């Protein structure tokens, strides 16, 4: 392992970071172009999510297709109202996904509770209360084009990520205690 560590520091010491930068761009290209989706459809937005995969919209053009198993997916698309009863299941499925992973909040209900924001006892006011959301898509429900745009936006976001030690993961600012530990 020591050799690997030395190799890593040697790579970082190259001034312009040519090697690390090109590795980054290669890995980001791979990650961004194969965002397999975990379809977390709980309500009406799921209809639009389903429509996005089939003809006319065809998510597979961008390399995104739904896999039922969280272990094989990269991006969780939460489409639909999340109730407090559903919240542990969603969180658990998110935790079962292997790193690196991203979340797209699709529709007003997942963004902030939507029409259930007031006067409801059962609906989570936005999934960013318990998940690190990367992309928000507004709409009730959003059109598949909007979701497609969200995937392309996520690809843009991934392009700026890096292997490097200074990268701050989204989950770190979400959970302050984990940051204090590190």
């Amino acid at each position, binding site marked *: 392992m020591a050799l690997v560590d030395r190799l890593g520091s040697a790579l970082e010491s190259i001034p312009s970071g040519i090697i690390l930068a090109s590795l980054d761009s*290669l*890995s980001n*290209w*791979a*990650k961004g*172009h*194969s965002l397999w989706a975990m379809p977390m459809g709980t309500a009406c937005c799921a209809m639009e999510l389903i429509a996005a995969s*089939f*003809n006319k919209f*065809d998510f*597979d*053009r*961008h*390399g995104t*297709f739904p*896999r*039922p*198993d969280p*272990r*094989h997916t*990269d991006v969780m698309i939460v489409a639909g109202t999340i109730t407090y009863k559903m919240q542990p299941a969603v969180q658990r499925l998110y935790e079962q996904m*292997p*790193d*690196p992973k991203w979340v797209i909040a699709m529709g007003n209900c997942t963004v902030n509770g939507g029409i259930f924001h007031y006067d409801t006892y059962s609906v989570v006011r936005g999934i960013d209360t318990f998940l690190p959301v990367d992309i928000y898509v507004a709409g009730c429900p959003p059109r598949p084009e909007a979701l497609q745009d969200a995937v392309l936006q996520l690809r843009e976001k991934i392009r700026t990520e890096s292997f490097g030690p200074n990268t701050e993961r989204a989950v770190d600012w979400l959970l302050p205690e984990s940051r204090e530990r590190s």
Partner: protein
Amino acid sequence: MSGFVGGLIWGLAAGTLIAIAALFGVWWERKVAGRIQMRIGPQTTGPAGILQTIADTLKLILKEDITPDQADVRVFRLAPLVVFVPVAMSFSVIPFAAGFAPLDTSVGMLFFLAVPALSVIGILLGGWSSRNTYATIGAIRAAAQMISYELPRALAVLSLVVLAGSIRPLDVMAAWSPWWIIATAPGFIVYFIASIAEVNRGPFDIPEAESELVAGYFADYSGIRWSIFMMAEYGGMVAASLFGAAVFLGGWNWLPGIGGILVFVALTLALVTAMVWVKWTYPRLRADQLMSFAWKIMTPAAIVQLVVVAVIAPWL
């Protein structure tokens, strides 16, 4: 020792062949599936999406390698290799060109039937060691299915052995005549269907049925380990197509020299495409339908084929 070195070289070659076959096969499957569903399929990654599977593979290598907390760790890590190695070995007896098979053995036909059947052990190990109910059910289904479909597959190939009077693939190819296609057409259909069942592809993919078992026996595998399972599946598909195109359809016997190889490749591609076509056209079978299909239709059909061939063999 030269045999050992040769085996090593051919092992590497078969591994590379399977990797390329998997890369190309996944892309091809997604394109064909797209056309069947009136979509386009991968399009934006490289020209016509040809780089799509390369991006997928790179991503899978970079993913976190999860070993479940309760899993039997060593068995869990061993299982993908136990699935992959027999598939890689089965490539070695395929007659690739006139007078050439990497492993030219007198029991080649039986070897091709026996060795890929070992990969079911890896599936059982993977499903069991995940300590996951879905995975265990998927593995048990895979075992039942593969044992059942081995029999009609072997019987279908046996009719060719009766015709050729040898179980050395090169002898079968040498004795091959175009009339065999007519004589063994039912056997070829049985072989083709049983091969689809052997590699767990739709409509026989109940071991990994997504709607009931999440992903079946590899439900808890992520990243590169999961992709080894997928590579074994596509490798098995390509191996079955290569073998079927060679011994049933004549392969390189149609044209002399390099033209024959091209015909062989074209026939193989046609069989692979037919497998993809079948998968995306037919709905998944139920477990009991699958078993009764194997035992009530496929096996009797293969036996009838064998008897018919044995009767007409002297005139062919």
